């Protein structure tokens, strides 16, 4: 499964990728394009990425998670291009023998992805305007892998 895709995320593919009879717990995280008072009249987001690096970085994140939770298995995808409001832009699934690990492993992957993936978003508004949206600091310190 590609870590970066321009197609709609298929949740069942992620779930079946991490499921197995010896893993009794699966945790899935879906990040969807939000529209709320706080966000304004957003009708979708155009996600762009440094695609080659985003794939590599997501792979490294999953690999690091695999070192921390050796019995866990992961599936992780970021969608790029136009994502309409309400649809998932990112999905992370972790399957593990027990739920504590599944929760921790899934959370680890999404937190690292938020910090480290070279992905940007341009919000598309109802009136046709578009604006870059940055929610993170403009700091020059590179996001550090917690394992390096």
């Amino acid at each position, binding site marked *: 499964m590609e870590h970066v895709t321009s197609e709609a995320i298929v949740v069942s593919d992620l779930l079946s990728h991490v499921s197995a009879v010896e893993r009794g717990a699966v945790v899935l995280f879906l*990040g969807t394009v939000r529209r709320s008072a706080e966000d304004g009249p957003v009708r979708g987001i155009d*996600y*762009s*990425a*440094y695609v*080659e*690096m*985003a794939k*590599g*970085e997501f792979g490294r994140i999953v690999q690091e998670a695999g070192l921390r939770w050796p019995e866990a298995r992961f599936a992780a995808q*970021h969608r790029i291009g136009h994502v309409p409001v309400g649809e998932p*832009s*990112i999905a992370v699934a972790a399957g593990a023998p027990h739920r504590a690990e599944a929760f921790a492993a899934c959370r680890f992957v*999404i937190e690292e*992805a*938020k*910090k*480290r*993936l*070279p*992905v*940007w*978003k*341009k919000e598309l508004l109802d009136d046709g305007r578009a604006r*870059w*949206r*940055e*929610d*993170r*600091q*403009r*700091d*020059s*310190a*590179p*996001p*550090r892998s917690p394992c390096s």
Partner: protein
Amino acid sequence: MRLPHYRTTASQSTITIRCRLFGRYADALGVEALDLDLAPDASTRDAVAALRSQLENAELIPERPLVAINQRHALPDARLRDGDELAILPPLAGG
């Protein structure tokens, strides 16, 4: 693709790096990739300074932007080598 190519030294002994821009930086500067000739001991900071002095609207790029070298996150003073791919990254906003 033909890339814009900028020389910053007259010396023969230079390195050439490929510079890539993304998101709002690529938007504002109107360029996504260019080659830069730099002194052999150049750091990412020198590359950014060269970009800022040579390209229109480049003041949008901070003096110490987030950077990646060869598709890995890198420190802002990292040393560059001939052939490196240096990416200037706007604040990350994935997820």
